[in-house]
């Protein structure tokens, strides 16, 4: 479980990137890692719906400075493992370890978070990623400002931006 508690200044308004921006950044990162032939399909998920995969990996990176927010990716284990295998060039028939998956998912949120940071007022700093096997959980001083639900090969992926109240 990824538990986020931070934000100790009043800097940074609760502005957030647009859904289109987050989706574009996610697609850029995804396709650069997995190939232009891959397709990410938007999913219509009602607000407040928990991420619905059985096995879940989550990774978070926080942005602090001129803008403050938390970037989260949640993805099904059935997504995380093939993505990891591709990134680490793991031979077919060999399973990615949990450590491999944590590394790859952390790099995913690092790349998405870095590009989100570039869209927002700066200067800001991006934290090192934090990765968990399980859903992300957010402190009560954060509110979801933007959410993108997509599927890759029929399996769910969610990218969220949370900002301080």
């Amino acid at each position, binding site marked *: 479980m990824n538990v986020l508690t931070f934000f100790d200044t009043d800097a940074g308004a609760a502005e957030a990137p647009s859904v289109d921006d987050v989706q574009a950044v996610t697609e*850029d*990162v995804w396709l*650069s*890692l*997995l*190939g*232009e*032939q891959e397709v990410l399909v938007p999913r219509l998920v009602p607000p407040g719906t928990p991420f619905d995969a059985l096995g879940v990996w989550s990774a978070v990176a926080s942005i602090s400075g001129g803008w403050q927010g938390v970037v989260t990716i949640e993805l099904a284990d059935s997504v995380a493992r093939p993505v*990891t295998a*591709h*990134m*680490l*060039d793991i031979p077919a028939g060999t399973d990615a370890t949990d450590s*491999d998956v944590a*590394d*790859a998912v*952390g*790099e995913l949120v*690092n*790349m998405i*978070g*870095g*590009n989100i*940071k*570039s869209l927002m007022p*700066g*200067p*800001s700093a*991006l934290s*090192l990623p934090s990765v968990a096997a399980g859903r992300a959980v957010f402190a009560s001083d954060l509110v979801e400002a933007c959410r993108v639900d997509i599927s890759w090969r029929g399996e769910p992926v969610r990218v969220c931006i949370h900002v301080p109240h």
Partner: protein
Amino acid sequence: MRAMIIDDSRAMRSILRRIVSGLDFETSEAEHGQDALDQMNAGVVPDICLVDWNMPVMDGYTFITRVRDNPDWRDVTLMMVTTESEQRNIVRALAAGAHEYVIKPFTPDAIVDKLALLGLLQPDAVLGGGVPA
């Protein structure tokens, strides 16, 4: 040519290793700036370092300043490969001694183009097998 890939992500090191190995570079890897400095002090001095910015222990910017502080390493080419894309930080890195700057996500061609600009590729160099799409 020898390339050192400095990134705390094994996945990113793997991706970059496949790209530069496909261009016939010998590769070494470091998990952060201090790890890279330790290897270089031990004699593993590459022709080029591909350096992430955001790493534990020692970040890429600090690594660049340390390399540039050592005249024995003045011939080492430094290329940032990072998600850090704020203009002021790009300027800082280049002013500190980085020669080129690549923002993640990147394509293999972007790395190839930068290496060519730096004069580190043979004119007929092409990507070999195993490079990520």
